[in-house]
C-alpha cells in the first residue's frame, strides 16, 4: 500500500506572550492511499492542529511531513498552493464558501483558476457532483439562501472537483443536525470507496465509527489507535460501543 502521508515527530507550539504552549509533542503518523481515518480526542488535545500540520496549512516547529513523497516544509508557498488545489480537499466545520459567488461558482472556483478553457466541462462535472449530492437544483442560489447541511455538501463537492488524493475534514458534521450529518458521512464514505483517502477530526463517536482507523489524542500525543474493517452499513452500534469503551479506557 502506497503512503500518501507520512509524518515523523511533529512538534508545534503556540506562544502567548513570552510563554510557549506545546500543542503537538512529537507526533508520528502515516496515512495510506484510499484509507479512511479519524482522529478523536478532547478539546485542546491538538487534533485540529495535527490536521493543519499534516496538510501544510500551518507550519511546524520540527519534524517532517511527507506528502506523496515530498517534504512540505521544503516547498514554496506556490508549490504548497498547487498541492492544495490539485491533490487535497478540505471540508471545515463551518462551510467556507465565498459570499460573492453562487453555489455553482463556489464549487468550480479552484478548478477555474487553472483551466478556464475547459470551463464547460468543469461546469458539467460540478453539476453532476451536485446532483449526486442532492443539491442539483441549488446551483444559482447564493450561499445565504440555502441551509447549513446543503452548504456543507457544496463544500464537499468543491473539495472533490480536482479528484484529490486526500480529503481533510475538520468536524465536518459538527454544526449539523443528525440527518444532515448522516448525509455528509454517506457522501464522504462514497468518495472514499472511489479511492480517495479521508482524514477526519471529530469528537463524535458516530462519525469515527464510519472510519477504518481511529487515533486517540491527548495532550498533543497519539495515545492509542484502533482499527475496523471498511464500513459496509452494518454493525454501527458495535463499533460505537467499542469506541466509547476505548475512550473510557484511556480516560478521555
Amino acid at each position, binding site marked *: 500500500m502506497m503512503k500518501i502521508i507520512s509524518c515523523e515527530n511533529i512538534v508545534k507550539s503556540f506562544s502567548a506572550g513570552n510563554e510557549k504552549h506545546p500543542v503537538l509533542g512529537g507526533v508520528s503518523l502515516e496515512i495510506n492511499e484510499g484509507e479512511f481515518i479519524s482522529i478523536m480526542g478532547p478539546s485542546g488535545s491538538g487534533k485540529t492542529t495535527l490536521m493543519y500540520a499534516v496538510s501544510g496549512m500551518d507550519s511546524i516547529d520540527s519534524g517532517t511531513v511527507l506528502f506523496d513523497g515530498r517534504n512540505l516544509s521544503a516547498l514554496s508557498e506556490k508549490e504548497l498552493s498547487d498541492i492544495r488545489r490539485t491533490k487535497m480537499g478540505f471540508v471545515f466545520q463551518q462551510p467556507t464558501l465565498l459570499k460573492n459567488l453562487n453555489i455553482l461558482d463556489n464549487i468550480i472556483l479552484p478548478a477555474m*483558476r487553472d483551466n478556464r478553457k475547459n470551463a464547460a466541462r468543469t461546469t458539467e462535472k460540478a453539476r453532476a457532483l451536485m446532483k449526486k449530492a442532492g443539491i442539483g437544483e441549488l446551483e444559482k442560489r447564493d450561499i445565504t439562501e440555502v441551509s447549513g447541511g446543503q452548504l456543507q455538501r457544496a463544500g464537499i463537492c468543491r473539495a472533490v472537483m480536482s479528484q484529490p488524493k486526500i480529503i481533510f475534514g475538520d468536524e465536518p458534521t459538527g454544526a449539523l443536525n443528525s440527518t444532515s450529518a448522516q448525509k455528509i458521512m454517506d457522501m464522504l464514505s462514497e468518495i472514499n470507496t472511489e479511492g480517495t483517502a479521508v482524514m477526519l477530526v471529530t469528537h463524535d463517536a458516530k462519525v469515527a465509527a464510519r472510519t477504518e482507523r481511529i487515533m486517540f489524542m491527548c495532550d498533543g500525543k497519539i495515545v492509542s489507535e484502533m482499527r475496523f474493517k471498511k464500513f459496509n452499513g452494518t454493525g454501527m452500534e458495535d463499533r460505537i460501543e467499542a469506541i466509547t469503551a476505548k475512550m473510557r479506557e484511556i480516560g478521555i
Partner: protein
Amino acid sequence: MYYRIIRNDMLKSKLITLTTMMFVAVAAMLVSLSAILVVNLSGSINMLMDQAKTPHFMQMHSGDIDAGRLADFAEQNSHVDEFQVLEFLNVDGARIVIDGNSLADSVQDNGFTTQSEKFDYLLDLDGNVITVSDGEIYIPVSYMKDGTGKVGDTISINGKTLTVAGFLRDSQMNSLLASSKRFLVSENDYAAIKGSGSMEYLIEFRLKDLSEIGAFETDYTSAELEANGPTITYPLFKMLNAISDGLMIAVLLLVSTLIVAITFMCIHFTLLAKIEDDYREIGVMKAIGLRVSDLKKIYLVKYAVIAAAGCMLGFALSFVFRDLLLENIRLYMGESEHASFAFLFGIVGILVVFLAIVAYVNNVLKRFRKISAAQAIRLGTSQGKAAGAKHFRLSRNRLLNTNIFLGVKDVLARKSLYATMLAVLIISTFIIIVPQNLYNTISSKSFITYMGIGSSDMRMDIQQTSHISEKAAEIVKAMERDSSISKYAVLTTKTFKAKAADGSEQGIKIELGDHSILPVQYSEGKAPVAEDEIALSTMNADDLGIKVGDVMTLVIEGKEKDFTVCGVYSDVTNGGKTAKAVFSDESADIMWCVIYAKLSDPSLAEAKTSEYADRFHFAKVSHIDEYVAQTFGSTISSVGKASDTSVAVALMITGLVILLFMKMLVAKDSYSIAVMKSVGFTDSDIAMQYVSRSVFVLMAGMILGTLLANTIGEVLAGAVISSFGAASFQFADHPLSMYPLLLMAGTVLIATMLGTWGAGQIKLAANMKE
C-alpha cells in the same frame, strides 16, 4: 473609561487614525488659509484703495484738453465730490534706461507723473503718500518683483538721470493687466523731461456716492467731454487688483472643498467598517441594556478627538504657509486693514471644519438605532444584501482570467464599499485635469483669440502720435514687400457715438479694418463682413443690452446709421469695451492703430520683431508671445503653480486613500483570503485579485472623472476665465495632460500593492477556525 476605550482603539488602528487625522489637518489648513487669504486680499485692496483715494471714475485722454470746460462740468454735476486732471507723460520704453537696460521690450505704457494733490496718491511700500525730492524717482512695485530695477539704480530718461529711491504702489495700475505703469518724479524733474514723450491726461473724479457711478458715466458721455482713451471705473480697478490672487484663492477653495469631501468619505468608510467589525459587540451591549446614546458617545468622542487634533495641526500648518501665500498680496497691496480679523476668520474656518466633522459622524451613527441586538449576536454581521451582479457568473466567464474575474466581481458585488474609492478617484482625476486644462488653455497660443487679440506672431501699436494713418501705411508698404510676412491686418480704432435704447448717447470705440484675416474667437455670431455689420465685445453688448441680430444706431458725421450686430466676442484690451466693424470712415480722429502680422515661419518672430522695431521707431512692436507673457504672465504662472500643486495634492490623496482602503479591505477580507488559500490560490493570485479591483475602479474613476472635468470642470474653468473677460472658451487639448493621469494610475497600483502586501501571508489555521 471612555478615555481607555478610545486610547486602546486608536492604538489598535494607528494607520487609520493617523491618516484620518492628516486629512482633517489638510482640510482645516486649506479652509483656514482660504479664509485668511480672502480676508487679507479684500482688506488689503480696500486699504490700498482707501489710502490712495483711488478715483471712482477715470477717463484717459490724449490730445488737447479743455480744462475750463471740465472744471465747469465737475462744478455743476451733483454727483462729483472731487475732481482733478493729472498729467501722464508717456515715454517710449526705448528711451527709459534702468541700470543700463532699456524698457524697449516692455509692453506696458511706461510714463511719468508727479504726486497728485487731492487724491489718487502713489504710495510707498509702507502705505504712505510718497514725497519725492529732486533727482529721485519711484518705480512701480512690479518692476521690483521682476527684477527690472532696485533701490539705488540710476534711470535715464531721454538723457536725464535720476536715482531710484524706492518703489510705489499704484492703486490704479499695480496689476499687470493694467497696461500702463506710472513712475513718480518731482515737479522740477517732471518739467525737465516733459518734452521726452507724449502727454496723456487722466481726468479723474471722486463721487459723493459710489453707487451713482452709472448715472455719472452717462452724464459724462452726454456732456461730450474729452474721451479719447479708455474709461475705467472704481469696480474695474478693484477687479484688476484682485484677479491674480483671487484666482489663487478660488483654486485653493476648490481644492479645500474637495479635500473636505474626501475627509468625509474616509470617515464614512472607516466608521462603517468599524461598526461592522464591532457589530456583535454592539449587539451584546444593546442586549445587556446599554443605551444607544452611550454607544454613540464612544464613537463620537473618538472622532471628535481625531478632528480636534487634526484641526489644531491644520491651524498650525496654516501659519507655516500663510506668509508664503500672502507674500504677493503684501507686496502689491500692503497689509490688510483687518489683519487680526483674518486670524479670527482662520479660526472660524477651522471651527467650521471641526463642527462639520462631528455633525457628520453623528449623522452616520444614526444607523446604530437600526441594529437589532438579536441579529447582531446571532450573525455577527449586518444582514448584507445578497451578492449583487448576480448575472456575472464564473461558470459563464470565458473571457477574463479567473483572478481578474474575481476582482471585478467583488467590486460589482460590493458597490457601496468601493464607492468611496471610486469617489476619491473621480475627484482626484477632476482636480488633476481641470487646473491642468485651465493652465494649458490659458497658456496656449490660441487663447488670446478668446481675449480679443487676433492670432498672430507680431503686434505693432501706433498711438500717442500724429499722422497715425500715414505711419500705418508706411508699415503696410514694408510688409507688402516682406516675403516672410504671410498675412497682416490693420485695425484702426476710432470713437463714435452709439445711441442706447433710451435715446442717450454713449461713446463707443470701434476697431475698423478687415477682421476676417486674423480673427478673434466669437462667443456668438461671426466677424463683420458687410458695411452695415458690427461686432461688440461682451462688455459692450451687456452694457448696451444688445444681442446678436439686434440693430444698433451709430452717429457718424452727425448722421444716424443703423448697424446689425453680427457677433459678440470677449475682450480684455482697452478696458474691455470695444467693437469691430468694416465700414470706412474719414470723419473721426484715429485713436490708435494696431497692425497684426502672421509670419510664414513663426520661428522668425523674434528677429522680425526687432527688425520692425528698429525700422519704425514710432510704433511699439511686440512679439505676441512676449505681449501675452507680460500681460497675463503672472496670472498664467499662478494658475500653473496651482495646477502643479493640485496634481501633487491629488496624487498624495489618491496614494493615501488607496493605501488606507486596501489595508482595511485586506483586514475585512481575511476570511475570504483564507478560504481562497485553503482551496489552493497562491499569494500572487490574491495580489492579482486586489490589483484587478483597483484597476477596475481606477478605470471607472478616470473615465467618470474625465467626463466630469470636461463638462462641469469646463463650466467651472469657464467661470474663472470669464473673470478675465473671456465669455466662452473650450479646453485646449494637450497631449501632456495624459501624463499626470498616468502618474495617478501608477500611484494607485503602487498603493494597492503596498496596501495588500502580505495579504496572503495570513494564518490560515487562525482564520479558518470558527
